[in-house]
Structure formats: structure tokens, C-alpha cells
């Protein structure tokens, strides 16, 4: 701790001065810290806990091994909730008013906690701690690994929020001290630190939106044209293009896994793989039916058409232990056959492969690669994810929170309307968020829709699950 303090500026020195005057300011932290660490007991030294949530910054003031459960307080005993409840006016970020900054950060922390389902998080981590203390835990290493990994992740989240709260309290204390002692330099620095926190808090709010189990994984996005022939196949292709450019804007790698073109234009169905951090977390907001209203370029009578495209998003799980176990004997692998005598008689570059999982009827096709071997490998990856998805769905039916596969999406489940005629608008039917520039949305500018949906879906429940 001493060495950490040395790396800080004069502010740190002053703060330690303050702390030495205050009646043991750490008393409410350390006892709980040790309590928590004993609670965690067996997870220490596990690789799983070692890779807990990456913290944006290393622990600043307290290197206590376990996060704090009770809310941090200022020197005069204010908590984050108390600050948020004071109803201090929140002014623009440019205004140098510490109360405004502090109130804004406190509000953010409250929102982050809500999004993370804070109470549930604490409850769950207590439960896991009990499980982890069971002496027979490691008789089932797969289960033990899973539990300790989950605990590690939960602790990481708790710790990072607590640290953020702690930081807020320290800045407030420091600012008050600076005022008391008339130290202008320190006051400016603390003010700046609070303003920084306010900006960071916004970022953390967004990050907290993506705290679902599978949010951090890459995903497949599937688009299927609804009834209505060429016009809806063209719409499906437009939707697919929208996701491709959206993914590229976000810096994700996009590969086409399967594409079934329409006879005249567009696609009947297509699957792309979107690779990158939190691809599923964002893209899952897009699951459902997308509706287009426009004058169809394929209608010589220039009439207005309404068409639909269904979108499904499937996470690609990285964690082998939670994956669906596929039996080779349950698979039927169909490949392109040249139809003739084959072998040396034929030369074809057609190498599509389709795999059927017989017990569930799930299928996957790949025609993107140039060899059958590679197409089979890709199709297997798709099949694996579809089966994982089925498994997640089965497990999540208890939680009522589940993502749907393409076949399950009912055409009545419209999530967004794109109107190009007679007026121009894109409106999300779930959040009522709308923009009047459909072109930019169709070019992949989807983030606002996504954030709106994520925040509305997470913020409407009270976080006390």
C-alpha cells in the first residue's frame, strides 16, 4: 500500500494525511474483506479466479484480496445511495461543480448496479461461496471448474463496482479536505478526477448492458426472407448487408457461412459469422422480424409493398464444458455428389456440405469454403452452435430469458419497421426509438437502436430478481 501511495501525487499524500486524522477510515472495509476471503476459501489460486473480469484499473488504495460487500462511505459516512438521494442538481459536464459530478457518478453507479442485478449478484456469489466450500467439490472437476469460474466472474464484477464507489468517496473526501485547507491545486485536481469519473461512468453504464452469460462470445447471424417472393428476398439481402456493415463498423470479422440466393434477386436465407468481443451481446438485440414498407422496384405497377425478414442470432460458445455433446453416430453428412462415376472421372469445384443431427433434426450447411473437408468443419461449427443454442434454450426456459432460433421466431414478432414510403422512418417497436434516416440505418448505423433496446430491456426490471 505504501508503494502505491508513493506513486500518487501530492493529492495522495494529503489524503493519507486526512486518513490518519479520521478515526480508522478502513474499519468498515477490512473486516468484511477478510470475511469475504474466508468465504471464498477454496477458490484461491484457481486459474478460473485468476482470469476474473479484467479491471480497467488496478486496485488503487486497498489491495484487499476480496471485494467489499458493504457500501463504501465518505469520511462523514455518506454512501453512494445517500449522495444519489440528495437530489443535487446535475449540471452539464463542463460546469465545475463537485456536487453535480458526484451526483452524476452516483446515479451511474446506481444504474450500473441495477443493470448488473446487484442484489441477485451478491446473493448468487454467497450461494456459490457455500458450494465452493463443500469438501467433495473437486470430485467433479468439471462442475467445480464451472462454479469457481462463475464465482470468479461475479467477484470481478462486484469488485470493479466497489472500487468505483470507493474512488468516488475518496475524491469527495479529498475535495472537502482541499477546501478546508484552501489548497486550490488539489481542489482543481480532484474536480478533474471527478469529471473523469463521470465520463468513465457513462462507459461503464454501457458495459454493464452486456453482462449476460453469453454476451462476450462471437455469434452467427441468420436472416430469412418472409413470404412475398422477390421483394422480400431483396429485403432479406438488405437486412443481411445492414448487419455486415454494422459488424465491419464495429471492427468485427465477418464471414459468410451459408447463402441461398433468390432466383431473381436477394437471398432466401443466409448465415454469417461475426467474430469479435461482445458480438452476441450486441447482436442479440436484433432477434425478431424486421418489416419493410416501400415502393417495390420489382413491381412494374409501382405499388407499395410490405415485406418481412426474420433474424436469428446464435452465440458461439467458447467454453467446451457447457457445449452440447454431439455423437458422431447421430450425424448424417451429405455432400455434393457429382452424380456420375466420380473419382478420377469428375472434376468439380462444388464442395457444399450439409450435416443433419438426426435426433433433433437440426441441420447446417456450408458452401463457403473451397474444399469439402473445410466445408464440413464449418458446417460442424454451425451445427454445434445451433445445438448449443437448443441446449441454452432448454435450460433458459426456467429463466424465461431466452434467445430464439430462426424456426421459433413467429412472423408476428415484429421488432422494427423500416418505412421508405410514403414517409421515411425506422422505428423500433419495442423501445419506440425512431430515426428519420433509413439509409444510414440500412448502412449499418444500428448502435443507437441496440443500446436503446439493451437499456430498456435491462432497466425496466427493478434489479431485485
Amino acid at each position: 500500500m505504501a508503494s502505491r501511495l508513493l506513486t500518487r501525487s501530492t493529492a495522495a499524500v494529503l489524503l493519507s494525511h486526512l486518513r490518519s486524522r479520521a478515526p480508522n477510515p478502513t474499519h468498515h472495509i477490512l473486516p468484511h474483506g477478510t470475511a469475504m476471503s474466508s468465504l471464498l476459501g477454496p477458490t484461491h489460486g484457481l486459474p478460473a479466479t485468476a482470469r476474473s473480469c479484467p479491471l480497467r484499473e488496478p486496485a488503487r488504495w486497498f489491495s484487499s484480496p476480496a471485494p467489499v460487500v458493504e457500501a463504501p462511505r465518505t469520511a462523514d459516512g455518506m454512501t453512494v445511495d445517500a449522495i444519489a438521494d440528495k437530489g443535487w442538481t446535475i449540471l452539464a459536464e463542463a460546469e465545475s461543480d463537485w456536487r453535480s459530478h458526484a451526483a452524476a457518478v452516483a446515479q451511474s453507479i446506481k444504474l450500473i448496479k441495477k443493470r448488473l442485478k446487484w442484489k441477485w449478484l451478491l446473493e448468487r456469489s454467497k450461494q456459490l461461496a457455500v458450494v465452493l466450500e463443500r469438501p467433495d467439490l473437486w470430485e467433479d472437476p468439471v462442475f467445480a471448474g464451472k462454479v469457481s469460474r462463475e464465482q470468479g466472474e461475479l467477484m470481478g464484477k462486484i469488485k470493479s463496482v466497489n472500487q468505483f464507489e470507493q474512488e468516488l468517496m475518496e475524491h469527495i473526501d479529498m475535495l472537502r479536505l482541499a477546501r478546508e485547507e484552501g489548497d486550490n491545486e488539489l481542489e482543481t485536481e480532484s474536480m478533474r478526477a471527478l469529471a473523469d469519473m463521470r465520463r468513465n461512468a457513462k462507459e461503464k453504464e454501457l458495459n454493464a448492458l452486456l453482462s449476460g452469460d453469453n454476451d462476450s462470445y462471437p455469434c452467427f447471424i441468420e436472416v430469412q426472407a418472409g413470404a412475398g417472393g422477390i421483394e422480400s428476398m431483396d429485403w432479406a439481402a438488405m437486412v443481411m448487408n445492414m448487419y455486415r456493415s454494422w459488424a465491419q463498423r464495429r471492427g468485427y470479422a465477418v464471414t459468410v457461412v451459408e447463402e441461398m440466393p433468390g432466383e431473381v434477386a436477394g437471398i432466401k436465407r443466409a448465415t454469417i459469422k461475426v467474430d469479435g468481443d461482445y458480438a452476441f451481446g450486441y447482436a442479440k438485440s436484433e432477434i425478431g422480424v424486421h418489416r419493410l414498407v416501400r415502393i417495390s422496384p420489382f413491381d412494374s405497377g409501382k405499388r407499395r409493398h410490405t415485406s418481412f425478414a426474420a433474424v436469428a442470432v446464435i452465440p458461439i460458445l467458447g467454453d467446451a464444458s457447457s457445449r452440447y455433446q454431439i455423437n458422431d453416430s447421430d450425424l448424417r453428412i451429405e455432400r455434393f455428389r457429382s452424380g456420375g462415376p466420380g473419382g478420377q472421372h469428375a472434376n468439380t469445384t462444388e464442395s457444399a456440405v450439409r450435416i443433419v443431427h438426426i435426433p433433433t433434426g437440426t441441420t447446417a450447411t456450408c458452401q463457403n469454403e473451397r474444399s469439402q473437408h473445410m466445408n464440413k468443419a464449418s458446417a460442424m461449427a454451425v451445427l454445434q452452435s445451433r445445438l448449443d443454442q437448443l441446449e441454452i434454450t432448454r435450460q433458459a426456459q426456467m429463466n424465461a430469458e431466452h434467445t430464439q432460433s430462426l424456426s421459433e421466431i413467429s412472423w408476428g414478432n415484429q421488432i422494427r419497421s423500416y418505412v421508405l414510403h410514403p414517409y421515411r422512418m425506422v422505428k423500433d417497436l419495442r423501445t419506440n426509438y425512431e430515426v428519420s434516416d433509413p439509409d444510414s440505418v440500412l448502412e449499418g448505423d444500428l448502435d443507437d437502436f441496440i443500446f436503446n433496446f439493451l437499456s430498456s430491456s435491462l432497466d425496466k426490471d427493478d434489479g431485485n430478481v
Partner: protein
Amino acid sequence: MNEFSLLLKPSPSAHRRLSPAHAPSSSSLQPCNGCNRSSAIFLLSPSSSLSLEAEAKSEEAMLLSRSTRPILSPFLRKPKPSRLPKPFSSASASASALTPPTPRSPATTAHVPEDPTPLFLRPPTHPVPAPSLAAFRRRAAALVPPNAPHLHRHLRWLLADASSSTANPDPAVHLLRAPLDELEALWLRHVRDRRPFQYVVGNEHWRDLVVAVRDGVLIPRPETEAVVDMVGSVEGFGDGWWADLGTGSGAIAVAVARMLGPRGRVFATDVSEVAVEVARLNVERYGMQDKVEIRHGSWFEPLEDVKGKLMGVISNPPYIPTDDLPGLQPEVGWHEPKLALDGGKDGLDHLLHLCEGLSSALKPGGFFVFETNGDKQSEFLADFISTKWSSSFCNVEAVLDFADIKRFVRGYRR
């Protein structure tokens, strides 16, 4: 036989647009009886339309995209004499059909200086402005007849293979591995002369490998991928010595070598010097020089020193009966080496030779697998080996390929 079976007919106007120098004219064609005969057989063969139906069925089963399904064109069913490079003439039907010749218009060949380095391995040193490339793409796509949509896929791959793989600093200029006029000539030969796409780009994607190929070397077939899996299922294969006889491009040898342990080796033989050269290139490209030894010579001949020490013998020898050669798909019959296809009268000449050398080459318990012409040949061979050499071999059986044809014969030495 598949979608390639459709005779391509680039429109004469398209030819003019592409390059007047390449436009075929009947006067520039060498009189070539065998060529006439082979296209005659190809067009009239009832099996070609039958196999198309079979393909359409299998495709339906696979729910594949419609665009990959060739439409039976009336042109195919009723071939008309045309001014195109493959004139139809039944008068020459009596000519020897043993050798499917390679019809090439001298105009085209003269324009393509043969660079033995496969296109995809050449350095990307030819700057081409984006508009020129786009214009080429349009011209090339215009040559694709509606009944051969797979050629659009080939065009996409050709441009992918011809482009530099590294990020392009200047989006207005593309760096290509060949000048644009050479690409035009390559594309024209692919569409018009039915030169296999794999020879055009110089590679075939096979298993997880990109195998370099060029004229004179058999293009590895997807069916053959299974041979490698069979080797992988042999107990203790990783430390054994293996022989790949008639290795061609070396695809099998490289794929097997990549699975082997530190003590495993592959001896790959081929009688063709081009094959030896290409196989060596592929072995080097995958860094398998320490595992694969390429030897020049026919079948077992170069392997005297390892006789009786081999854990396995693999081969995809020529097995097509000589009489079937003229009826082959043009990509195969006109362009691939007869040496790698022609299996003699019943297609069994080389397979039987391999069987005879087997028992002295393999060590006890050793494994062998041969690719064959299909059901009858596999059944005959399996029966022949287990009857004639019942004391030497066991568990001899015919194995199905992915199209449910008995494509392979495998077994163990006692």
C-alpha cells in the same frame, strides 16, 4: 459428370469484346479428328443427361441453392453444328479415340507464356487500377453462360487468388500476381477450352490444404480426402513408415505426414517428373521435408531399401478403363494427364501390379488402401486379393465414398 457437362457457349460478341486476338475462328483450328470425336461422344452420350438428373436429385436432397443447379439447356440436348472451337463431326467417329486430345487454339496458347509457378504463389507485382479490374470483372462475367453459374464462383476465386493477400495501401490500385491480359487469357481458356479451374489458379483446396497443381499433374479429388482419414484410424500409424505410390501433387503424402509423429515417414514415388517437381513444392510449402521423401520412379521400384518395413501402402493409381477415356468430362479428358488416368483395358493394370508388390513391401500387420474406379472394380479387387493371397492378407474390404460408391479397397497384411 456434373454441371461442367454443359458445353459452354460464349457468345461471339463477348469474344470480340474480350480481345479480338483470342476470338476463335475455324481457320485457326488444327484439324483434329480425335477432338471432334470426343466432343461428339460427350454431347450425345445419354449418360451425360442422366447424370445431370441424378445430380439435380442429389442437390434437391441437399437443399442447395438454386443458382448452383445447372438448367438443362436445349442446347445440350440438341447440339447444333457451330462455328465454335469444338465443331461437331460424326465422320471422324471411326478415328482412334484412345487419346482424348487437348484442343487448343494456337491464338490462345501463343498468348499465354507458360510460367511454371502457380498463379497463387507468384509475387503480387502487377499494379492494376481499380477501374480496369472492375472492367475485367464485367467482361469476364459476361462470358459466363446462364447455364454454368459455377463459373461466377470461379471468377471470384480467380480474382481472390490473383490478388495480393496483404492489405492494400492504395485502394485505387490493386496489386495482382499476373498482368490483366494474362488473366484474360487464362479466363478465356477456362471458359472456352474447359481448362480445369485448378490449373488456371494453380491450386486445389483439398482437406485443409491448398495443394499446388499444374498441367501434367492429376488434380486431387474430394473423394480421395477419405484415404487420409483411413490412415489416421490405423493403430499406431503415427510412428510408421508409409508409402504413397503415384503421389502426383503429393496431396496425400503431405496430409498424412502432417498427422505423423516424430518417427513417422512417408515415401512418395512418382514416375512423372512434373509430378515429382510439384510434389516437392507442396512438401516444402507445408514444411514436411523431414517427413516426406519424394522418389522418382514407377510404383515400388524406388523403394527397394524399405521393402518389408512399411506400415502402410497408399495409392490412387490410374484406374479408368481405356475405353472410357474419350467419354470423360472435357476438363478431365482434354486436360489432365492420361498417365494418371488410364488404367488399361479394364482399368486394373496398375491396381493389379500394386497388389502383387504389396506382400513383400508391407511389414506384418501392415495396412493398405487403394482408390478404385468404383463398385465393380472394388468388389473384384477385394475378392481377388482375399482369394488369391488368402494367406497373406486379412480384413480385405471395399469401402464406400461419400457418394456411396465402393471407392476404396483396404486391408491388412497378416
